[in-house]
């Protein structure tokens, strides 16, 4: 079985290296096909592993080699395939295979085709390391590895200033969180003496709660960065500068869920500190609403989806925070499918619209892009959580969890968010695919994407529809590892009321969105309408002014402070002091060299002066010695 593990893990790496071989040469299809095929292999191996784990309940644990060993620290390259990681592996390999195949078409005309696949496969490799590692350090490798790949891919079109800026922003924000993660790891090491999950988690129950709390907090800070939770969320929307397949894979399906995975993985820890869990859940709920609200008005198709991702991540954290780890993981999985689908669909639209992102400039595309239309609609339905699509099973479950755990505020917020989700999703669908063909004003001639791209997307489509069906099997499997709490509303009546109520609420939101945005009056907003000038709209479109705040009060301050440090402190104080000391000597020399006037008479006077000076000192000393008694009495008389 280890063979499958290694195949699953290293096939993407091989693909990446293979593509990298062509990195500097001209675009060649093979650089896309081979990595995709290798990913397929990886997917296959993962499937085998999944079946194995599912069937036998066995987990596979290998230690490839030692990575670091110093003092008492011992970190191997160890990998584990257990119920949790195999789910993640499936998600990752599946989505990435789809995205790879899709990208062969999507990136068809790009100069950096080969490079792209190299990066993309490298990302998959890092992501697999992240999920398969059996210790925190390995997790961190993957953690940073996906960060790197994300940086490379966001900034893929590096000639665009905005792209490289967004890449750097993403990297640096993630780094801020990574510091927290690192500290969390240090805490784990110094308190449990190991970084292996198994031993570390085993040791945790005997630790002081305060320490565990800190551990939980710092590890979660790491998760916040990667999963773009408030206040480190701004990078995710900006990350949409990357090619759309990247957004689908990294910024929707996999990398951003790493934070959730971490919390799930560290469930023994978080189970011990429910207060931190509650915080996580609250933050999750807040982010869910917060992000959804920003998605309401945004006029960038990809950003809307990005905010939706953010919002869904909030859901996941809410679940994980409340201890429903398996629920969180389930939503993670389901979300990966439909959100990737949504993004890829958006990619098709972008292609068709020549990289136009404003849905107000589209409209009526359903006529030309049937396939895409269907897929995106289904994905949106799934996202909105309409029965019987994937979203219903996972998202409703989260609502139930909140309800069952008696966190009604969280519940209410999440419920509200569900409505908003439905609204903005269908706002998008409506604006893109229905209504007037507004794109004609811009002289664009949209066309459907390659067939094989649509075919490539189809597995996602299927999964987005049927994923809910796996719920029970999934539950049976993962609860071998995760707390097997079942969340049932006690009274059936309440359950039905809740479920149906939610469905109705959501559908209402969809209907409203359709009504509002399929109308013929929709025009490209030009900043004159009343709504656009309302405070709420401005707040939302400016993302609550948070990026503005960051730019003006943190980035700018940092830049200016750096400048001050360099020009004022380093040069004017520190270095000037050093030179000043040297100068003191030099200047003393220059000033006093006149003593050497070259005139013999002066020299003689110096000699005499020196002697006289010494003499006066001698006399003073001699007198003091001779009259020491008198001086003492005199001084004591003065009261000294």
């Amino acid at each position, binding site marked *: 079985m280890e063979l499958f593990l290694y195949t699953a893990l290293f096939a993407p790496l091989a693909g990446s290296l293979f593509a990298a071989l062509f990195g500097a040469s001209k675009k060649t299809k093979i650089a896309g096909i081979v990595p995709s095929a290798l990913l397929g292999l990886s997917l296959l191996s993962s499937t085998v592993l999944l079946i194995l784990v599912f069937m036998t309940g066995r987990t596979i644990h290998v230690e490839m080699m030692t990575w670091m060993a110093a003092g008492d620290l011992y970190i191997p390259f160890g990998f584990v395939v257990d119920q949790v990681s195999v789910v993640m592996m499936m998600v990752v390999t599946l989505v990435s295979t789809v995205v790879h195949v899709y990208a062969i078409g999507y990136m068809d005309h790009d100069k950096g085709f080969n490079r792209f696949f190299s990066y993309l496969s490298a990302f998959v490799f890092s992501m697999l390391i992240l999920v398969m590692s059996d210790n925190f350090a390995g997790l961190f490798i993957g953690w940073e590895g996906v960060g790197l790949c994300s940086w490379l891919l966001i900034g893929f079109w590096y000639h665009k200033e905005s792209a490289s800026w967004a890449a750097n922003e993403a990297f640096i924000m993630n780094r801020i969180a990574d510091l927290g993660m690192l500290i969390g790891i240090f805490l784990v090491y110094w308190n449990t003496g190991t970084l292996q999950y198994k031993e570390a988690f085993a040791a945790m129950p005997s630790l002081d709660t305060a320490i565990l709390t800190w551990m939980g907090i710092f590890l979660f800070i790491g998760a916040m960065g990667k999963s773009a939770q408030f206040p480190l969320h701004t990078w995710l929307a900006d990350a949409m500068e990357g090619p759309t397949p990247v957004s689908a894979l990294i910024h929707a399906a996999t990398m951003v869920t790493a934070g959730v995975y971490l919390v799930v993985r560290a469930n023994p820890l978080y189970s011990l500190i429910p207060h931190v869990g509650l915080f996580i859940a609250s933050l999750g709920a807040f982010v869910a609403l917060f992000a959804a609200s920003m998605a309401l008005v945004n006029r960038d198709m990809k950003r809307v989806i990005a905010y939706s991702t953010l919002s869904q991540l909030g859901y996941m954290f809410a679940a994980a925070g409340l201890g429903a780890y398996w629920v969180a993981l389930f939503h993670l999985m389901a979300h990966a499918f439909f959100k990737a689908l949504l993004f890829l669909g958006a990619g098709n639209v972008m292609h068709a619209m020549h990289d136009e992102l404003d849905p107000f400039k589209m409209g009526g595309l359903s006529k030309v892009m049937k396939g895409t239309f269907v897929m995106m609609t289904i994905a949106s339905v799934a996202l909105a959580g309409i029965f019987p699509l994937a979203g219903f099973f996972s998202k409703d479950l989260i609502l139930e969890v909140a309800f069952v755990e008696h966190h009604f505020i969280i519940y209410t917020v999440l419920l509200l968010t569900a409505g908003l989700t439905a609204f903005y999703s269908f706002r998008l669908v409506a604006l893109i695919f229905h209504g007037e063909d507004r794109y004609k004003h811009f002289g664009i001639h949209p066309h459907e994407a390659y067939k094989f791209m649509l075919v490539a997307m189809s597995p996602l489509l299927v999964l987005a529809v049927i994923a809910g069906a796996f719920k029970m099997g999934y539950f049976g499997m993962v609860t071998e590892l995760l707390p097997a709490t079942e969340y049932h509303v006690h009274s059936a009546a309440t359950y039905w009321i809740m479920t149906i109520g939610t469905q109705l609420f959501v559908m209402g939101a969809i209907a409203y969105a359709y009504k509002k945005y399929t109308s013929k009056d929709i025009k490209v907003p030009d900043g004159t309408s009343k709504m656009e000038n309302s405070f709420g709209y401005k707040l939302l479109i400016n993302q609550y002014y948070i990026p503005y705040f960051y730019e003006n009060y943190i980035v700018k301050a940092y830049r200016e402070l750096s400048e001050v440090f360099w020009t004022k402190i380093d040069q004017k104080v520190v270095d000037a002091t050093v030179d000043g000391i040297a100068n003191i000597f*030099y200047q003393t*020399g*220059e000033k006093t060299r006149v003593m050497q006037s*070259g005139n013999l008479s002066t020299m003689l006077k110096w*000699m005499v002066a020196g002697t006289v000076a010494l*003499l006066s000192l*001698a*006399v003073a000393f001699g007198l003091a010695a001779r009259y020491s008694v008198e001086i003492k009495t005199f001084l004591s008389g003065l009261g000294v």
Partner: protein
Amino acid sequence: MVSPANISMESLNLITLVPMLIPIIGALLIIIVDLFKSEQDRSLYVMLSLLILGVDFVALMDTAGVFSKNGTIMGVFDVMLIDGLAILSQFIVVGASMLFIPLALTHKRFHEFTYPEFFALFLFMIAGFQFMVATDNLILIFVGLETASLALYTLIAMHNRDKSFEAAVKYFTMGALAAGFFSFGSMVFYALTGSVEINQIAAVLEANNYADIGFVLVGVVFLLASFGFKLSMVPFHTWTPDVYEGSSAALAGYMSIVPKIAAFVVAMRIFEFLIHSGVVWLEVILYASVVITMTMANVWALVQTDVKRMLAYSSISHAGFVMAAILIGTTQSNSALFFYWVLFSFTNLGSFSMLWISRQKNLPAHQQSDHSYNKFAGMIKTAPVAATIMALFMLSLAGLPPFALFWGKMYMISSAVTGGYTVLALIMALNSAIAGYYYLKLIVYMFMKEPIVENGGHVYSANATLSLKTIIGIAAIGTIFAFVAVNQLLEFITAFVYNSGY
């Protein structure tokens, strides 16, 4: 009552006079040779002097042998005192002189070497220094000192150009004042103790428990002033740069070593017993003057534009550095003094010889003085070997290991550390850092600047002959491979110093 003196020859210990008599006889011999046949080539006199000094050196080795067997020897009515200090310093005097004298055989001709008298006076001067160090009688010290000084003034003046006369006159006049100080100081001690012999002065002062400290200090002040002059302690140093600049580079190098070691020995004899007797004032004053001399000389050296003047200030600084040994006054420090000075002789003679070898008779327009810094600009391009050697001497002077002077500095600072003078040790160390700047300045000029036009490499060896090159070679080898000999040297010096009771 005057009775005929009944003195056995053995008790006179005439052997103590041998090392001094040899150069005197040699000097007379040179004069006689000149009388018989004048207008002889200088090489004759150089070699004669060298031979005489060689014989002197051997005689010294003999004396050293006797000393190590029997200990301190007093001779000729206890006027002569051959102890370890005397022997060590004479070794340095004679050895440095042997290194100096071949420098007369320059490629270009210079005035002083056309005189046989130059060599005679040179030998007389050596004898003077030898007398000065080999006695503890203030009278003989004075007479020896003056013999040597008067000869030295003349040697400087014989270079025969304006600057050298100016130098000689300055040196002479200040020397005369210093002589006055010396005699006054001696007078005070004589008045206090009725003796002019240092050990008796010490004994008497000890006996009456320094009752009249003020008066003692007056004497100390005058002696300090006079030796401050010889050792060029600030502010009695003012002659040094001018005299070094005015005299020929070779003689300047010589002056930076030989007269000073003689003066050091006398200073050691005079001041150490005072410091050991707890004359706090002297300790404070010496401390101050050591620090001031080191630091100020360094500071002035920083701003010099002429290498020779820079080296002059640098040797003032080195003297100040070594003066610390007298302040510290332990066996280790006194050994360090000699140790330092031996190593310093090689390096400093070497660097002055490098200047000597590049001496021009007519200065080109861009050059303000004989050895201005920019003369050496870009030397590595035109005369790489010479530049490397010169750099080596500079690094040694700066105290960079493993070159000669590093060991001296290290041992000296160590003696300060062991002597309990921590702050002094730090000041000494930091002064080396300041000094680094001006030594480095020359290296910068030589290695990092572009050569000035018309500055062909021949300038740097314009004066070279085999004998000059040999001397530089010896100095260079001594500088580089000092670490080979350091152990023996240290053992030898320590034994001698220790056995003399210092």
